[in-house]
């Protein structure tokens, strides 16, 4: 166990409604929706906040240093703040930074804000621009790649793999149907799993439109507080146990390197003394940019081997009522305002511990929950939360 300077908990969260087009609000107004909801959830006012963290990806909306403009909606005026951006992992990095900044003693109550308004830019163009202009950019197709699908197909055979991916996608949609904030709520039906995939336009190889995450507008705000403040506010806390960030270099290396998902999980579980994550963790909010990656990464995050993760999907273990619920929110395949997305995972995991998830609250007590972020060149950020205060 890593010794923190002091304990930190999530005591409130808020989200705007996620949608493909939030034309009725501008960026600070959309952020304001999330901030107001987070403050109400924590029963605080802006006066209780002493630091505002802000993050997104600038080249989507082409606003440089948008935290300047956004003080109009995020409450940052007169307060401290830091802007952190790490691509898709931005939201998770904000959560790690909030944990660090509160644990450090520099701040007592932090409001972390992630947002994106993908409607205002070109998502795939923006992502393609991450590749090295000399070596990679002409090969990059945004985040659309068929390699994830092909890997699962090669290992488990086309039929089983395709059904597992679409089953995963359908379960996520069943969850999204319960989440009033979710962007895509499609009412997919299990009896048409095969047809739904077959009739969906291919994007890259076996990655089809139905498998891929949405392009969403939305904002998320999460309030982190020190142990002293949790007591003073008589708050309902979800404690931050630990977090781990694992990057890999941008040059695409083909072959069987360890995934950053597995590397992050190994490091985090070793520190937390977790031997059997499926049993010792009650719930997982995973950044699943596509159904195929969801299937593939579940195995790595839970340190499983062979087809164990596939069986979890086939046996309905990952549903809201299942033994190991994954993404009761509907996940990223349902809603993806990129700069907010990874913070939404942390917020959702905290909501499940705090019992505030409403219609998509899982029916069991969540004592320990995990949230992941994905971004950059296959980067992972992993955060562990608990109902009980860490030692």
């Amino acid at each position, binding site marked *: 166990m890593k010794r923190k300077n002091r304990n930190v908990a999530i005591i409130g969260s808020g989200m705007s409604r996620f949608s493909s087009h939030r034309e009725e609000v501008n960026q600070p107004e959309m952020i304001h929706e999330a901030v107001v909801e987070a403050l109400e959830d924590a029963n605080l006012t802006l006066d209780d906040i002493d630091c505002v963290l802000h993050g997104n990806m600038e080249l989507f909306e082409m606003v440089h240093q948008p935290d300047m403009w956004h003080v109009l909606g995020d409450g940052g005026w007169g307060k401290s703040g830091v802007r952190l951006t790490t691509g898709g992992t931005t939201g998770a990095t904000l959560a790690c930074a909030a944990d660090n900044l509160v644990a450090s003693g520099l701040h007592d109550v932090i409001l972390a804000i992630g947002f994106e308004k993908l409607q205002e830019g070109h998502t795939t163009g923006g992502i393609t621009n991450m590749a090295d202009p000399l070596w990679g950019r002409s090969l990059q197709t945004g985040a659309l790649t068929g390699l994830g699908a092909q890997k699962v197909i090669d290992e488990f055979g086309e039929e089983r793999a395709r059904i597992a991916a679409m089953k995963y996608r359908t379960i996520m949609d069943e969850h999204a149907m319960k989440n009033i904030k979710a962007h895509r709520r499609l009412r997919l039906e299990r009896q048409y799993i095969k047809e739904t995939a077959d009739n969906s336009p291919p994007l890259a190889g076996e990655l089809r439109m139905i498998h891929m995450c949405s392009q969403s507008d939305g904002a998320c705000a999460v309030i982190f507080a020190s142990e002293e403040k949790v007591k003073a506010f008589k708050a309902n806390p979800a404690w931050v146990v630990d977090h781990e960030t694992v990057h890999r*270099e941008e040059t695409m290396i083909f072959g069987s390197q360890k995934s950053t998902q597995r590397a992050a999980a190994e490091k985090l579980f070793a520190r937390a003394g977790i031997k059997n994550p499926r049993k010792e963790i009650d719930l997982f909010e995973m950044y699943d940019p596509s159904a195929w990656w969801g299937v593939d990464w579940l195995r790595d995050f839970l340190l499983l081997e062979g087809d164990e993760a596939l069986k979890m999907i086939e046996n309905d273990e990952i549903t809201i009522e299942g033994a190991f619920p994954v993404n009761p929110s509907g996940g990223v395949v349902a809603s993806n305002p990129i700069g907010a997305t990874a913070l939404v995972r942390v917020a959702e995991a905290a909501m499940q511990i705090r019992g505030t998830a409403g219609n998509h609250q899982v029916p069991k007590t969540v004592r320990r929950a995990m949230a992941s972020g994905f971004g950059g060149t296959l980067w992972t950020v992993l955060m562990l939360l608990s109902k009980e205060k860490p030692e």
Partner: protein
Amino acid sequence: MANRVAICAVAQTKFEPGKKDQRFQGMLWEVIKSVREQTGLDFSEHGIQGAITVSDDVFDARTISDGGITDVVGAHYGSEEKVAADGAQGVYYAAATILSGHHEVVLLTGHCKESQAISRNMVTHLAFDPFFTRPVGLDYLSAAALQARAYMDRSGITETQLADLVVRARQWAAKNPAAQETTPLTREEVMAAPMAADPIRGSFMYPVSDGAIAMILATEKRAAEFTDKPVWITGLGNCYDGFFLGERDLSGNFALERAAQRAYAMAKIADPKTAFDLVEISDQYAHQLPQYAEGLGVCPPSGGNQWLSDGGPDRQNVNRSGGMITGNPLMLGGMARVAEAVLQLRGEAGARQVAGAKRAVAQGATGPAGQCQTVVIVEN
């Protein structure tokens, strides 16, 4: 602070108007190599445990500008987090990752190539909201011009006084091997420069600049392993002002005063006028040196004019590095100020050394007309 954070090593490239032979990875390699050699650290588990980087997607013309430097900062299968603000904010956050107990040793880097943009004003123009302020054509230069006019009106500081500050900056820059603009100028030459945005002449603004900086930060316990000259971060403060320029008092220092108060409270500093052996101010524009000196409280409130006339900058060792006005890219202004403070406290500032320097304050700004301010106090 429960624990202390030490800055154990610092390296900076020479700042230049256009490093055409180097990509940003190359600039970083140069400074990271240096801080590793200074400390003997590697990227193993007991070496550098994580990287905090500072850069900006729009300046780099790259989504996820830290994506191109994962290997250089040693984060392949390791940790890296990017601060997308002035480099002083990077110091702020890097210190927090150590104070929290999460890391013991971190690499802090910053890079920016302003020369990549046809005009850096095109970059900062994008910081204005697309509805009200962007259509007016604002950028950070024109915002600074409004600030300069407001401050000069309030303080009575003249163009001649500002020109003398530029002359002085060049004299100190000539003693700083990392500085960009080292050619001596006369007051008349400074005053003859064409107007960039009234009242800011071309000579009153920081030049287009490329460069990179690296530092090693560590816990008190670990610092002793790599250096016998640790420099301690004893105060950190930061604050945002409002966005619309018309809603702010551009002649004042709302954000900087609060950032300074927070840093001084942490460092237990009662009188900033006498507390520091040297002061490093991010003077992107000449008028900001006295204006921010007021905000920092190193001169009396509203006393910037008198302070200049009294020789305050020389007496209080302000910007012996030459200051930002002699050349640092926008993202690195505050980090370069901290770097200079560290070199001074380590006694490694060469011909510009302040003898026996014990405590310094460094200031960095992000946003239009210094909307977001950061103050870092270091001691040896």
